[in-house]
């Protein structure tokens, strides 16, 4: 049975406020014993693999995006069996409410949330403001690792199609809206990696033809929360030119920054069909025979050859 949703009025303007919880809500839920019995499970997902160990929300369980969600030998996510084993070990059952938070404006938390949705986990929510907001509010932290009773998680095969795009899907999608969430320098092709991440480059610099450039962090406010609905609408409906009901694909370099944007488009603005292209620029920028556009212009759909 899902845990009751946060009725916070600040979230009411978003399309799916039930996908968000506030720090106050979580603190109260923990005090009320929601973590006992695995009805509510809190996961921390960070970029740095040791941040959790420096102190975390009491009762929160660590999830590492790199070693636990990715398959070691295929460039893909884990399969249903590995996911079930991972979830159960963290005390998650299929009907658990899962709240995810992390560092860097929930960038890695949104990525983990998106992977949970690939497996159709029904109730997974984001802690608004993530780790930074929790710490800024001087809320309780601990270095104690919780002892969790294993959850009961069935083997569910991943269903990629609704929210995940592959390269061929993107090729077929050309002509419909794309959002490029990388930095302006990556978008124009001036550089092929994120500022300060030079080892993750690609052969060519630029963007997928017609993609609008909305760097992911523009959806985040200074305190790590998402911007409010009118601000998000100005970004994605105004600047990017999306229209209600559009079928949208977001991408970045490996699909993690675009998970943050994917969440904003799907749950905050209510676009029903939003996919994250996790192959992103490291695949597209290196793939043979796919078109790119260099420079600041979005470019046009190349005519079929």
């Amino acid at each position, binding site marked *: 049975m899902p845990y009751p949703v946060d009725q916070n009025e600040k979230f009411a303007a978003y399309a799916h406020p039930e996908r968000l919880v506030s720090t106050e809500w979580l603190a109260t839920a923990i005090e009320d014993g929601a973590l006992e019995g695995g009805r509510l499970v809190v996961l921390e997902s960070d970029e*740095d*693999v*040791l941040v959790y*160990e*420096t102190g975390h929300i009491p009762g929160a369980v660590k999830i590492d995006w*790199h*070693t636990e969600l990715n398959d070691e030998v295929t460039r893909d996510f884990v399969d249903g069996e590995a996911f079930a084993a991972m979830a159960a070990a963290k005390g998650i059952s299929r009907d658990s409410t899962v709240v995810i938070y992390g560092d860097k404006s929930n960038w890695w938390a949104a990525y983990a949330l998106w992977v949970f949705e690939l497996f159709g986990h029904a109730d997974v929510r984001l802690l608004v403001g993530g780790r930074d907001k929790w710490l800024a509010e001087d809320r309780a932290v601990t270095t104690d690792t919780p002892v969790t009773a294993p959850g009961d998680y069935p083997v569910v095969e991943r269903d990629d199609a609704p929210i995940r795009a592959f390269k061929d899907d993107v090729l077929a999608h050309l002509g419909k809206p794309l959002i490029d969430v990388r930095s302006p320098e990556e978008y124009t092709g001036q550089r092929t990696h994120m500022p*300060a991440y*030079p080892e*993750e480059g690609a052969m060519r610099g630029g963007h997928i033809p017609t993609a609008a450039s909305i760097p992911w962090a523009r959806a985040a406010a200074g305190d790590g929360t998402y911007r409010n609905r009118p601000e998000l609408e100005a970004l994605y409906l105004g600047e990017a030119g999306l229209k209600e009901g559009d079928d949208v694909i977001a991408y970045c370099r490996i699909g993690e920054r675009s998970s943050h944007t994917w969440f904003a488009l799907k749950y905050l603005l209510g676009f029903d069909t939003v996919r994250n292209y996790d192959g992103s620029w490291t695949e597209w920028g290196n793939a043979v025979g796919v078109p790119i556009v260099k420079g600041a212009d979005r470019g046009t759909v190349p005519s079929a050859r």
Partner: protein
Amino acid sequence: MRKLGVMNTSALPAALAEIVDDFQALTEPERLQLLLEFSRGLPELPDRLMEHPEMMEQVVECQSPLFLTIETEQHDGGTPQSVRLFFKAPPEAPTTRGFAGVLHEGLDGLSPAEILAVPDDMPELLGLTRAITPLRMRGMTAMLGRIKRKVSALPQQS
């Protein structure tokens, strides 16, 4: 390719060899804990560097901001010059701090020749690659590389 795992540390300076042995003796989760301890043990910068951040260089290969610099000390009585290492990394980047802590404890005070003799792939000896991922290990390799480049650019000793 050399086989990883149990590896000969005899080519390393004593302090660094000891650290590598400590890591290799542990299980993977324990290695992460040890790295965390190194992150806590990284010394604060002296005031003269705190006040002059421009004297430090950023290692951009690290996922989190990491700045480092080196200084040299000349010993009396003709003993070799020793190299002092200084690192700056934020507390919210414990992995990066941990790598810096390992290099500080393992290399600080050694002679230029000893530092230059450290194999470039030394970070792989810590046995963290699977838990930390190759991507994150590159930051440490880059830190070591930067230190060695700076040491090799020092004026030749007389």
